[in-house]
């Protein structure tokens, strides 16, 4: 279904041939808010006439479009009323400003009270937040879960999870539901161990394992040490409690 279009005459100023305007109300409101057209020049009665015509044309009216119109028309009326009222009513604005400043003053003077009360509550919170209550005990024990809940509670619960600030959805999407597969190549580990032993001569096995940052790296270390030993590239030294490997100069 199409949105109604509105023709407004003579509302675009000094734009040459673009003197008349035609378009959906949303566009008119957009232009108004950007000061592209003058609110003074919009005749509400004209829009109303056009709307009534539109209603006549549409035998089966889509309620959503109608309400959209009402919302926009009321906004337009609001803008226009505000403009008309503020033009020549100095006394009301003086009274208004007086009342506003009275309210403002009252607030300023009442605020210490509220602040006092809020501080008191904040202090109370620390002793009260430790009380944990329990759910009611079911009166009849039954193997079947027999209570009814509101489905809206699920929606609220999910929204409360999604609304938590600390939840970074992007990072979350990446890690998702499966642990990332980190495989540490044994060949890479072998090179690392040889480089390390060339530099330092002897290194504790425990130390090697502790330096590993993932489970697969630990496995790679273990396998690499065994492989290197089998190849005769490294030898075990030290005691059982303090086992080390050192580079075999062959």
């Amino acid at each position: 279904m199409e949105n109604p279009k509105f023709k407004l005459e003579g509302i675009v100023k000094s734009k040459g041939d673009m003197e008349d305007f035609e378009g959906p109300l949303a566009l008119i409101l957009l232009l108004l808010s950007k000061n592209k057209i003058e609110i003074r020049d919009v005749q509400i009665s004209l829009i109303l006439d056009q709307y009534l015509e539109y209603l006549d044309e549409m035998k089966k009216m889509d309620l959503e479009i109608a309400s959209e119109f009402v919302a926009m028309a009321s906004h337009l009326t609001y803008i226009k009323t505000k403009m008309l009222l503020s033009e020549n009513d100095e006394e009301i604005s003086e009274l208004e400003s007086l009342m506003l400043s009275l309210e403002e003053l009252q607030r300023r003077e009442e605020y210490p009270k509220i602040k006092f009360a809020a501080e008191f509550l904040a202090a109370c919170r620390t002793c009260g937040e430790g009380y944990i209550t329990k759910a009611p005990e079911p009166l009849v024990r039954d193997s079947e879960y027999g209570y009814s809940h509101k489905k809206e509670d699920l929606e609220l619960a999910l929204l409360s999870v999604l609304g938590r600030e600390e939840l970074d959805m992007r990072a979350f999407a990446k890690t998702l539901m499966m642990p990332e597969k980190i495989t540490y190549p044994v060949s890479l580990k072998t090179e690392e161990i040889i480089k390390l032993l060339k530099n330092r001569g002897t290194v504790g096995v425990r130390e090697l394992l502790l330096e590993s940052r993932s489970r697969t790296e630990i496995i790679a270390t273990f396998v690499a040490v065994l492989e290197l030993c089998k190849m005769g590239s490294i030898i075990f030294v030290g005691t059982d409690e303090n086992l080390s490997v050192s580079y075999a100069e062959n």
Partner: protein
Amino acid sequence: MDIREIEAAIEGILFASGEPVPVERLAEVLGQDRQVIVDVAARLADTYASNRRGIRLIKLENSFQLCSSPELADVIRCALDARKPPQLSQTALEVLAIIAYFQPTTKAYVEQMRGIDSSYTVNSLLEKGLIEPCGKLKVPGRPTLYRTTKSFLRSFGLSSLKELPSLPDTGKSEGQLEIQNAINALMEKEEAEKPREVT
């Protein structure tokens, strides 16, 4: 029914309920005087606290409720995968303070006191169960009245609203009176010049 039996029955009922149970309800069901229930409950609360048990009996206005000992909060939350209750923001505390002190009151009153739209905070306090609607004000628009809940009392370690300290008296300043006078004068002048269009 002897004292020990009444004590056991109160303990059992409060345990099964989980929620606050009014003194009257306990008195009625156990066929005892209100005062007997209050005394026995106080004794039970004492026993829990002085033996440093895992349970506490607390009084919330005219009701009693069992809850866990606050010292165990961390270990219990850990065992049950529960989160710590969220910290209340300064804004939430202010709105809660206004409702606590001026209840029953409307959102409009809260907003007037704070000079700022407070719908979001009022709704979030409703969701947290710290305030609840309690009828409508009989003025045009029939705005909802709000009051604090029993859960509010418990969460703030209070047993009654009477425990809220009275607010410091600030009175009306000269400035306020001055503006009020100016407004009155202006309105009288307007009234005199022209009959009001709207009654």
